[in-house]
Structure formats: C-alpha cells, structure tokens
C-alpha cells in the first residue's frame, strides 16, 4: 500500500477542535504528537481507544488518515487533512503550527 502510515484524528466534543491520538492515549492539538502506526493491528488498537474516548465524551467522529513520515514530522497526504492540521488557509491568524516537533506531550 502506498500510504501505510496512519494517524487517528477526531474533533473534540467541547469545541470541535481537531485533535490527534497520541501514543500515550491522550488527544493533542498538534499533528506531530499523533501516534503514527503502520501495522493494521496497531491501527485497530488506536481506533478502539478512540472509540472509548467517544464513549467518554472527549471526542466525536474519529477516523484514521494517511501521512508521509518526514524528518520534520508526519505530513498528511490529503489536502483536507493538511488544512485540518493547519487551520483555514485563508485565516493565517487562526492557524496552528504544523511540522513542529511534538513539544508538550
């Protein structure tokens, strides 16, 4: 498969913000903090965790999307996910830093 690297994302229940599931099972607003998995089993595991977060009312509508791992962090393959990660391209002032290393998590 061309894009076997995946990250699990969702929108946070309280404000709808785009979040990524980290390797520690938390949700981060930073794309680079998302856990990148390759194996179907690992992905199934992340998705199962995400569903538990849905049940716990932390996030809604989780799913996995394809990324290309790069030196500066994972890069979403689809335009849609690039925009979700960075914010509306027409409002740079509301944007978020992408491509940065995962600092906080």
């Amino acid at each position, binding site marked *: 498969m061309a894009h076997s690297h995946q990250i699990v994302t969702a*929108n946070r*229940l*309280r*404000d*709808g*913000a*785009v979040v990524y599931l980290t390797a520690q099972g938390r949700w981060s607003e930073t794309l680079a903090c998302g856990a990148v998995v390759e194996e179907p089993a690992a992905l199934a595991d992340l998705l199962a965790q995400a569903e538990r977060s*849905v049940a716990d*009312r932390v996030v*809604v*509508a989780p799913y996995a999307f394809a990324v290309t791992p790069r030196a500066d962090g994972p890069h979403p*393959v*689809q*335009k*849609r996910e690039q*925009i*979700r990660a960075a*914010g*509306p*391209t*027409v*409002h740079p002032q*509301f944007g978020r830093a992408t491509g940065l290393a995962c600092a906080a998590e």
Partner: protein
Amino acid sequence: MYRYDEFDHTLVAERVAQFRDQVNRRVAGGLSEDEFKPLRLMNGLYLQLHAYMLRVAIPYGVLSAVQMRRLAHIARKYDKGYGHFTTRQNIQYNWPDLEDVPDILEELAEVEMHAIQTSGNCIRNVTADQFAGVAADEFDDPRVYAEIIRQWSTLHPEFSFLPRKFKIAITGAPNDRAAVKVHDIGLRMVAGPDGTPGFEVIVGGGQGRTPMIGYVVRDYLPVPQLLAYLEAVLRVYNQFGRRDNLYKARIKILVHETGKEEFTRLVEEEFAAMAGEDPPALPGAELARIRAYFQPPAYADLPATTPELDLALAGNRAFARWVKTAVAEHKQAGYAIVTISLKPIGGIPGDASAEEMDAVADLSERFGFGEIRVSHEQNLVLPDVPRRDLFALWQALDAAGLATANVGLVSDIIACPGLDYCNLANARSIPIAQEISERFADLDRQHDIGELKVKISGCINACGHHHVGHIGHIGILGVDRKGVEFYQVTLGGNATESAALGDIVGPSFSGEAITDAVETIVATYIDRRQAGERFLDTYRRIGMKPFKEALYAAH
C-alpha cells in the same frame, strides 16, 4: 418589519431552554453523539473541519440595526470576531464552543432571531428578493408572504421530516433577484386576470449534484390560496418523494421522474381534495395583520437630486463609479437602495467583521430607518437611503472599508466556504475567489468588462451557486483528483427570469491555472463582444467554441 408576538417569543424561548438541556445532557453523558447530532442540527449547529458552525436564520434577509449589532456582539464574544453571510441569507459562525451555543441562542432570541430549521429535512429559511418592499420594479411586497410562509412552516408537524431539505424563494418583482427557478418552490408575484396579485408557482428547481430549472405548475394562484397550495405540493412530495436514496430525495427528482404533467395532476388533485368546493383561504384579517408589519416607513418628500449630489457625481470619479454599481432604483422618489459590497478586493466573500457589522448598523440608522438586508449574493443592503445623502454615505462606507465599487462585476464573487471550513468539500473556494479578485483588482477594467459573475463551489453540492449566475457567469466547481484540488469551469448560466444552467467548458484546471483560465475567458469575451453586449449576450451569440479554443489552445 415583523415583530414577534407572545406566541413566537414563547416558542423560541422554549426551544432555547430545550437545547440548553440537550447540551447539558450531552456533556454529562445522558445523550450519545448519535442521539445528539440530529438535535443539534435542528438548532443549526454543524460540526465542520475545525470547529462547530452555527447557522443563524435571517428570515427573507431582513435585519434591524439592533439585530445586526447583536450579530456583531456574538461574533466578538463567542467567535473569532467575524461572521459569514451566505447565499441563503443566513449568517454562519465558524468557531463557537458547544457549551456556549445555548447562550448564543438566548442572546439571539432576545432580538427575535434563532437557528431553527437552518438544517435538516424541513422547510428551510424562506429567501426573498433583497430589495423587497422598496424596489421600483416591484409588483407586490413579497415579505408579507414570506413571513406568512415562515410562520406556517415553523415546526409544522407534517413537514418536519420530509424526504429531504426544502427551500422556498419568493419575489414580488419581474426582475428575479431571488433565483426562484432554482428552488424547490419558487413563487413569483404576478397579476391575475382582473389585475389582483397572485403567484406563479414554480416547482422542482435546484442546484446540487443534479441542477434543474423549476417548471411552472400554476400560472396564477390567488393570494388567499397560497398556504393550501403549498401544502398540496408538500403533501405530494412527502408521500412520493424518494426516501431510499439521499441523492434522489429532493423534489426536483420526484418531478423529473414523475413527469411534469403527472406531478401537476397529483398536486391539483391533492389541492382539490383539500379544498372541496371551497378552497381553504388565508383569513383576510390575518393577511392584513401581517401586512401591517410591512407598511412603508415614514418617507419624507425628498428631491431626486440636489446640486451637491450632481456636483459630486460630476467631480468625483470614485463616487460616481460606486453609485453606478451600488445604487438601485427605489420605488419612493428621492430615495435609493444601496448595496454594500462584502467583496473587498482580495477579501473573503460574505465575511464581515464585528466592526463592519456595527458600522453597517450605525449607517442604517443614520441613512435610513434602521433596516438592513442580506442578499443571496452575499452582500448587504441599505434599503432606504435619501438620495441627497448618497455622498455622505459613500464617504462613511469608504472610511469603514465598505465602499468597493464592484457590485455585479467580476470581483463580486460568490463563494462557498469550501475546503477551508467545510466537511464535505473537495477543494478550496475562498482562495480562488481571492486570487481572481486580486487579478481583476483594477476597477476601470472591471467596469469595462461589465456585468459578469464568478461563482465558486467547493463540491458538487453547489452552495456557491456555480451552476447559475445572475447575468451570465463563470461557474467554478472544485473537484478532488487523487487528493489534489482541481477546478471545473462552466459558462453561461443565469439565475434570473431566463434561468439556464451553465455548460462545462472541458477538462478541469489546477488551482494554479484557474485564475489564468478565468482571465482567458474574459479576454475572449472582450475580444469578441459587439457594442453593448454583456458577457451573457456574447456567449449566447458565439457559443462555447471560441472560449474552448482559447482555453485549451496551448495544450
């Protein structure tokens, strides 16, 4: 303007309280997302790419200064300081927090606004000519009937779960500014045999993935029979409309599949059954009660022009150019209708900051009776400006950055939110609009090009009206090709009386090439036009071929 009565206030207040409870239960765990989603949608709350989006109805596009200030306040307090006026005469907030939404709805209810029926398979916000009640070419005031339809359709139990959403548009003028032929039902006011006003009823128009021009089911419907007839149409739709396939659920598909004659027969049969000998009529007293809300304001006896105005028109080119595009004829001598462009060069079509909303509210009081309209072309309108004040108004608008003289011209672009916000999008719309607007920034050039619209949708749902333009148009549809944004171009469409859908020019263009393509189309028109021809006229005369050749010659 219509004012809520006791019943309206109670209904909206109860609805806010109910939604507050639903949000609390969602956050506390009493409601799952599957249970909550339809409830939030019924209150206009969507989940978009980056955040929730709240869609607030502006019934038939009419706002008071007080309401506009409240919209500004909400943008400031609960959002990121701006709102987006849409082609359906709504306003959308792009960043509210879930738990703030009940407060927002409460603040809206205080000024007689709400978000009910801005989503879901019900009768949506009724749209109307933005010049309703003031247009010189108007036959009768459509706001009266739009309000009657609004009251009748709000939480109508029989029509809360239709096969799909249902949109009604109404115009009282022969110059159709409400795009009535591309709505589920379009109503156009016409004179009956004895000259009394009635409606031409058009059914089955629509945009989306299957654009269709509606057809006339009734040439003339007497005013008192309006609701009974709408009910007949909706009953036929409710009964026979397809619920098995989301993409075939709109009434246009039913009309298409049933055939016009048979569909008309079904409606007339339903109407006759309901009516018996005596068609159920709108009570005259009720009609009079609603009409009273829309009495013309206290117009003064004002001159059509003044020496100062003549002087300004002759001496100030920028002002004269603005007047040419922004000012429309008012039915009352001495007054003008002014369209405020929400399309500054390089701006986001339809976006307004809280400051701009406040400025417009102030100006509507200073230069009118405190009323504002929202047009389906994503602009604002001051309906009652004394002509002698036009220069002062222009100066004030200019100071607020709201005097772009481009209404109806190539940079007066309609664009949906597209992939910058929308969950369903294939491609971005706004940056394309911005780039085209920048490319044609020169107003002299825009005025030379004349009436021409660019309309951009980020996907086949066509929220940006890319199928139809007002005066001929360039339609741009964003498509996804393996994760890359591409843009398909259509030409010719027209949303007015002679409504026609655009034709696709050929293979789609990349995001980098689309602005050049628009420029090539415009250049071809300039090159080939004859004296006095608008873009649409030239297109109709010479057809697609010369445009196609110019666009694809190099490839």
